[in-house]
């Protein structure tokens, strides 16, 4: 029974995260595969006869060609372990007259996985731009239909599916609001072809690859910095700060009073960046004095170092204090030369002011655009910032903020080091994950050719975020 309870607990934990998760396990004698069912985190449809209307809270989804109706489904697949051997989308037709149709629609993958359920209309709809996954023929009311989406859903992540119909007699399906007949994404996982007999799996053994961990907006008179410093106590590797390390003014006293007793425990392995609060002290002299040579050349605040097969760049986004961040500025020229001389295959950069953010308190900082451009031009993978006191992860984007899964840079805002949390404002395009009630640190494991990210929450909190990306 102990084991059974453990499995149940794991399933319940997953259910909490994705609203409804039902594990249906095969017969005990063929217990080599398991299925996990996810309901959409968002679903809606649009209608070209009412181009400005959103149906995100409706219990119904429709596809039609007259008027043209398209439906959009989004799933957040998480917690799936093992090899995904199958993925099928299940949709249920409405139990009303008129739900039936000669066509249940054509199902396609979508690159946009951040559309708003209560904001999508015909006029602003996301593009249905991916591969065709399958079609459903004629449908009758009150019936389940399935589409094989295994070519698209191959593991954890966010998945958007758009549905169109060429029939002028539309089909109507039940939306996630209906509960038991909500669309489903059923993931089948099987044992890998060589079932490795690991009787007592231990936590993933250290891969030996370097770890970079940290946050911005850290030390003040509150207790958040204590909570995040305690996380660092258990995470080896290099520590980064993304600025606003010591409130309110980055003075020597602020560093001694607030930073030193908390994050200061890890000073010897810390490579910092300076925020606007550091520059409340003229020339950020308190910051440069406290960190010494770890902060690079005094007065500049930009420098670089290597971790394994990664090149790490630290920039100074207090542009007005260092002669600007524009193209041709000293820092931008240094950055381009530094990146040109770099021989490591992957690049991560961090500084304070975010180029992209949905935070309510600070608008996106356009002045760092030339720095983002230089990093993009040199195929960098990751940018980490702070300034808005919250966590936000963006999809890989080009310097204009457009989705770019080929060369795009993934931007993180990690202003969760301890300073009081901020609200979010309008959620910006390509923002994938957000949280503003959890202090924590962001941990990168820097592999040769890829990286893992993991948001590690303060003790007692549950929010987390993790994933993996290849280098360009």
């Amino acid at each position, binding site marked *: 029974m102990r084991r059974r309870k453990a*499995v149940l607990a794991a399933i319940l934990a997953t259910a909490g995260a994705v609203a*409804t998760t039902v594990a249906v396990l095969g017969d005990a004698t063929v217990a080599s595969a398991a299925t996990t069912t996810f309901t959409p985190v968002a679903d809606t449809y649009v209608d070209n006869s009412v181009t400005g209307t959103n149906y995100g809270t*409706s*219990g119904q989804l429709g596809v039609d060609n007259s008027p043209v109706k398209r439906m959009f489904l989004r799933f957040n697949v998480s917690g799936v372990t*093992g090899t995904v051997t199958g993925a099928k989308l299940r949709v249920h037709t409405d139990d009303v007259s008129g739900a039936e149709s000669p066509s249940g629609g054509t199902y396609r993958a979508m690159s946009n996985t951040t559309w708003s359920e*209560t904001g999508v209309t015909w006029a602003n709809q996301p593009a249905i731009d991916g591969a065709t996954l399958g079609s459903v023929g004629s449908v009758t009311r009150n019936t389940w239909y399935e589409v094989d989406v295994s070519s698209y859903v191959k593991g954890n992540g966010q998945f958007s599916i758009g549905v169109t119909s060429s029939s002028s007699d539309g089909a109507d399906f039940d939306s996630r609001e209906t509960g038991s007949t909500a669309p489903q994404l059923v993931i089948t996982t099987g044992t890998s072809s060589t079932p490795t007999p690991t009787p007592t799996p231990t936590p993933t053994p250290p891969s030996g690859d370097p770890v970079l961990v940290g946050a911005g907006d850290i030390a003040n008179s509150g207790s958040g910095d204590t909570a995040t410093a305690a996380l660092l106590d258990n995470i080896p590797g290099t520590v980064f700060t993304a600025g606003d390390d010591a409130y309110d003014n980055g003075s020597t006293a602020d560093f001694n009073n607030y930073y030193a007793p908390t994050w200061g425990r890890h000073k010897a392995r810390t490579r910092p960046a300076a925020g606007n609060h550091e520059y409340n002290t003229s020339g950020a002299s308190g910051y440069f004095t406290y960190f010494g040579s770890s902060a690079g050349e005094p007065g500049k605040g930009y420098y670089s170092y290597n971790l394994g097969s990664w090149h790490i760049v630290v920039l100074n986004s207090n542009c007005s204090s260092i002669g600007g961040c524009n193209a041709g500025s000293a820092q931008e020229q240094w950055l381009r030369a530094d990146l040109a001389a770099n021989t490591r295959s992957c690049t991560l950069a961090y500084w304070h002011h975010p180029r992209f953010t949905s935070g309510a308190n600070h608008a996106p900082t356009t002045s760092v655009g030339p720095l983002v451009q230089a990093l993009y031009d040199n195929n960098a993978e990751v940018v980490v910032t702070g300034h808005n006191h919250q966590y936000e992860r963006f999809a890989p984007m080009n310097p204009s903020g457009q989705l770019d899964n080929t060369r795009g840079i993934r931007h993180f805002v990690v202003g969760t080091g301890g300073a009081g949390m901020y609200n979010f404002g*309008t959620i910006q395009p390509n923002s994938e994950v957000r949280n503003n009630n959890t202090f924590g640190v962001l941990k990168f494991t820097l592999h040769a050719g890829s990286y893992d990210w993991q948001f590690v929450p303060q003790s007692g909190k549950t929010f987390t975020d993790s994933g993996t990306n290849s280098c360009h």
Partner: protein
Amino acid sequence: MTESEFREEEPGGGARLGTRARMLIAAAAAVVLAGAAVVYAAVASDGPTAARESDVPGVVRADGARLRVLDNGLLSEVSLQDPSGPRSVSAQQCDRAYAAAGTVACLRPVGALGGTHLAVLDGDLREVRSIPLTGFPNRLRVSDSGRMIAWTLFVSGDAYAGGEFSTRAGVLDMRTGTVVASVEEFAVTVDGRPHRAADVNVWGITFTGDDNRFFATVGTAGHRYLAEGDLAGRTLKTVADGVECPSLSPDETRVAFKSAVGGDPARGWRLSVLDLATKKVAATVETRSVDDQAIWLDDHTLAYGLQRSDGVNDVWAVPADGTGAARLLVPGANSPSLQPSRDHAEVR
């Protein structure tokens, strides 16, 4: 159960379950499903049949009162009778919006090309006036007549909840075109005595029905006062302490406001109501921290925005007298304002 036992049986790794365990899982799933069904029961009550096929376009009907809201920054409109139903979503981008009597005020997002603007739109959402402003959009109000517009901007967004911050509140008179760039210029009286201090901040203006008097928060020397203002007389006089972001009731007898918990904004705010005659304060049953300038749906009901931890907002409603329960009014929206009934069959 120990940690190591937990790890032994990660799902997806070929777990073997007996009948009892599977029943437990089914029961657990059923509980989750039941919870979801309850949550959505109200939302979906008329969903499957309300928007059937092409002959009944599911536009927002305007034959009753409506709520204007922001839907992730887009000016939108829902039926007050069916606020969870289909909504009209415009392309107008605002960080904060408020509409009254055909005047739609919108604080534009700070963008790459410049700072915020006050955009004044007509009832058909055509821009009729634009005023460049400095700061970060925060509060916005239009008087019931549609004549007066008041805004509050953060001039510095740092450490707002915890400590130092600076606001600028201004007023536009749509009839005369007069702009008061900052009501901090007005003569301030605190507790009956003239008060001059560099640290005076004013935020959260709410108008009375005469388009001259108003209420607002005056912050100075660590206090956050409710002040009554007079536009013609250019005065501000404090009438109560510990009152932020006032919102005057339709009958003008009470002010809804956010009350700092324990007098400390860092601990959040309790949505409360002050009786102007008796100065008695009644907290609403909403215990979550409300950082908003609430609106009155009628003389008995408040509506306000609350943000989830992932940044998605919802508009909630709660009785103003401290009874009842808070209820979800418009999912995925904030910045509500009330549009009275009108006769047109459809709205944009």
